[in-house]
């Protein structure tokens, strides 16, 4: 009797579980389909961006990741706007126009009227002056943004429509002011001490107060989903997207699958191979966008203890020699690097100024970056690095060079490949080397301790060349400088261009500095970066690349594309909503199939077990 009841109970339980799973599965599938199709009609469609990194802080004074900058761009406004062509500052932000005094020491900005914060309070010049003053008076706020206000002595708002910057000496980088403007009436309650941990996230269902085209309604730093809802009263016009969602995926693969499945509309940071494969997909547009940045092989030009002036670390004497570094410029094949290490998603680089910033570009001689190992060998011979008895080159004094340490970053495939190639090219010119792979954070320490010969890394370059040029000044050693380059003549030119108020004059000086960097070769620039991006072109249109043409589509300077992009007119095609329901039915069928299969298997095995147990007893 027990036996029978036992069996029945088991069968019932099994069927119950199967039924539950089936029901949940069907329900789930319809629920997702439901969520896809029925948003309130007046809310506007949702634009979902997939990316592979988190926002590290919604507080504009804390975050440093590109994703955070993008979030601030949605939430806030800037005083200036950027051209799509070359990112040069232009009116169209909160400032409608500006002028500079004759001596270059006073900048006056005229501020737009009728702009309000999302809580209804008016946005005036006072908010701008408040934000800038928070940065100017030091503390955590200055860590990210302080360098844009160099030599600024005071920032005032004489009335609601005017902001005035007073300078100690002329500053050529103005009006490059990429700081988001925050509301004074909210931030005055955040003390300097608390700003370091102020999260600036929605709380209690209240969105964060901002003035940008969208408002942050959901999201936490380090979280994986962020939601921004349209600001219907945005002064530059209501965005076409009702909502912008950001979803973080842990790998490019998942990201692209989500794009193909239609779970996201835009994928940021797609691998080159994926871009190629996506270019064949209908309804998806994929491209490699020029990004204003470069990668380089950097040398230890001479690390010193900044307090005592004594040499620091253990650089190989060879890399300290200008002629050695310069000769290697001809030993590296930038074209091969771009096609193989970067799988085609890069442009062979000359120097530190990306092609988009044309006015600042140095017109280098045609063969300045040519791949010419014979020339490299000849230059090394001339510099006294002769080939020794063992087939490797020696130092001019006859001592062996030994193995150069080539540091690559474990978290960057391209850096590992670059160094693998560099090692073989060095071998071609009879220089022995070994690749050492370390984490980026560890490499920072190694660089600051001067315990390296060369490493591979890259920089992002701002629309104004000032900051990237500053990284080669003596004062930046131990700070931003990673090559320990120090040349008094270069420093003099740097100061000169920074105070120059005439563009053409300044450009001439910058070109002189670029020539100097080429000759001294603290860096061998390898490639200009490209970023893979893909979007559902069957749903969205109107992207304007930056720089135009060939540039990236999102994660630009400013938030222009969040206003440009609009849904594709569905009345012509109109098949996408039907797909959702089809998908749901397919899912339901598939799941029922699996459940039946598993259930059948379980029942079968149970039956087998019953039989077996009968055998066993007899």
């Amino acid at each position, binding site marked *: 009797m027990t036996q029978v009841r036992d069996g029945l109970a088991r069968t019932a339980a099994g069927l119950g579980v199967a039924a539950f799973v089936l029901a949940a599965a069907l329900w789930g599938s319809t629920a997702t389909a439901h969520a896809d199709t029925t948003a309130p009609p007046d809310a506007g469609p949702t634009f979902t961006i997939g990316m592979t990194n988190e926002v590290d802080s919604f507080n504009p004074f804390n975050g440093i990741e590109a994703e955070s900058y993008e979030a601030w761009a949605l939430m806030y406004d800037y005083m200036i706007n950027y051209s799509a062509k070359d990112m040069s500052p232009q009116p169209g932000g909160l400032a409608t126009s500006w002028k500079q005094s004759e001596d270059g020491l006073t900048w006056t900005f005229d501020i737009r009227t009728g702009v309000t914060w999302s809580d209804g309070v008016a946005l005036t010049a006072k908010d701008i002056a408040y934000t800038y003053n928070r940065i100017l008076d030091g503390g955590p706020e200055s860590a990210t943004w302080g360098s844009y206000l160099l030599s600024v002595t005071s920032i005032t708002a004489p009335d609601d429509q005017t902001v005035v910057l007073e300078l100690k000496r002329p500053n050529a980088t103005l009006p490059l002011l990429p700081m988001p403007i925050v509301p004074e009436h909210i931030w005055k309650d955040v003390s300097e001490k608390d700003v370091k941990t102020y999260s600036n996230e929605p709380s209690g269902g209240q969105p964060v107060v901002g003035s940008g085209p969208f408002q942050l309604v959901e999201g936490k730093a380090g979280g994986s989903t962020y939601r921004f809802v349209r600001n219907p009263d945005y002064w530059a016009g209501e965005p076409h997207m009702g909502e912008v969602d950001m979803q973080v995926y842990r*790998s*490019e*693969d998942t990201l*692209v*699958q989500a794009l*193909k499945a239609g779970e996201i509309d835009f994928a940021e940071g*797609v*691998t080159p*191979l*994926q871009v190629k*494969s*996506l270019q064949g997909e209908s309804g998806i547009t994929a491209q490699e966008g020029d990004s204003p940045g470069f990668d380089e092989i950097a040398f230890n030009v001479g690390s010193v203890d900044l307090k005592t002036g004594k040499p620091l670390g253990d650089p190989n004497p060879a890399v300290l020699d200008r002629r050695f570094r310069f000769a290697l410029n001809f030993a590296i094949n930038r074209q*091969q690097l771009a096609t*193989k*290490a970067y*799988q085609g998603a890069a442009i062979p680089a000359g120097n530190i100024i990306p092609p988009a910033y044309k006015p600042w570009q140095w017109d280098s001689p045609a063969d300045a970056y040519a791949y010419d190992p014979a020339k490299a060998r000849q230059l090394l011979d001339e510099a006294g690095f002769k080939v020794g008895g063992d087939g490797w080159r020696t130092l001019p004094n006859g001592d062996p060079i030994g193995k150069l340490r080539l540091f*690559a970053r*474990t*978290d960057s*495939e391209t850096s*590992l*490949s670059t160094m*693998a*190639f560099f090692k*073989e090219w060095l071998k071609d010119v009879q220089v022995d080397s070994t*690749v050492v*792979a*370390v*984490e980026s954070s*560890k490499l920072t320490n190694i660089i600051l301790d001067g315990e390296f010969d060369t490493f591979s890394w890259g920089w992002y370059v701002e629309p104004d060349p000032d900051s990237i040029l500053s990284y080669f000044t003596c004062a930046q050693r131990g700070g931003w400088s990673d090559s320990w380059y120090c040349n008094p003549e270069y420093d003099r030119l740097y100061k000169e261009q920074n105070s120059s108020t005439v563009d053409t004059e300044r450009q001439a000086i910058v070109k002189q500095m670029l020539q100097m960097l080429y000759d001294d070769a603290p860096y061998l620039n390898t490639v200009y970066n490209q970023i893979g991006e893909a979007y559902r072109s069957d749903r969205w249109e109107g992207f304007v690349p930056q720089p135009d043409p060939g540039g990236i589509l999102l994660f630009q300077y400013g938030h222009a594309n969040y206003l440009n992009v609009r849904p594709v007119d569905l009345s012509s095609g109109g098949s996408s909503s039907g797909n959702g329901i089809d998908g749901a039915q397919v899912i339901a069928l598939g799941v029922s199939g699996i459940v039946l299969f598993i259930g059948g298997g379980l029942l079968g095995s149970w039956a087998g077990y019953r039989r077996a147990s009968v055998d066993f007893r007899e």
Partner: protein
Amino acid sequence: MSAAEATGPRPLSSRQVTWRRRRASAGRTWRQFRQHAPGVIGLVVLVFFALVAIFAPLIADSTGLSRTQSTGQVLAAPTSQYWLGTDEFGRPVLTLLIWGARVSLLVGLLATLISMVLGTLIGIASGFLGGRIGGLLYRLTEWFLVIPFLPLALVLATLLGGSLYTIGFVIGVTSWPGTALLIRSQTLSIKARPYMERARVLGAGNWHQMSKHVLPNVMPMVFANTTLTVAGAILAETTLSFLGFGDPSRVSWGTMLDSAFSNGALTLGAWWFLFPPGICVVLVVLSFTLVGQALEEIFNPRLRQR
């Protein structure tokens, strides 16, 4: 040591007797093992992979590992020239797989060596010595057992840098506590046996008892446990590499899976890059497990009765 002298000098022939006895017992073990079908299958697979790893330079040209000299298309499907297709640098996946066997097995063995030595020493010492030292060692074992393995290994890998040897070391020093506990309990039961009592009464010191009586008795268990530890160590290497904490300058099955995942093998439908390394890992780990279980059954009399 003095303890050894206390038992009196032994004639040479006695050692020969011991050796003969050991040889005989090894032969017995082998005969028992041969009857254990899954164990034998596992052993055959292992021998195959070991041969592949040892003779890798003869089977596959090492230039196939070079990122700069690769000749194939990028992530190309299998062809008659590239039996298992190519990876994201156009290198033949089969070559990577063969050379990867070397790294994976080497790391597994290195880690196991460290783990077994540590585990056996600490296990015997903590079981035998008792008192404060034994207690402290037990606490240490327990701490290592309590700290989740993977995060600890990741921390150590970050600290020491990702090279083949450091990865092996990291896995070794994080995976010994299981062995130590096992050996400790064995030691405790051996310590309670009557002949140990006799040895103590005869004046044998701690060192003598541990090295002459306890160690030989736990050795079979150590041996059986070793194969299981290798299985775990290879899995651990694969996992560390998959999370990007492996040796980036060498190809292992784990780093292959990592680059397959991060280069979008799924999107590109590059199954030849995703499946073979995984299958190799499963085969090798499975074989080690089968061999280990067979040995355990032979050495552990309690299990043998079944």
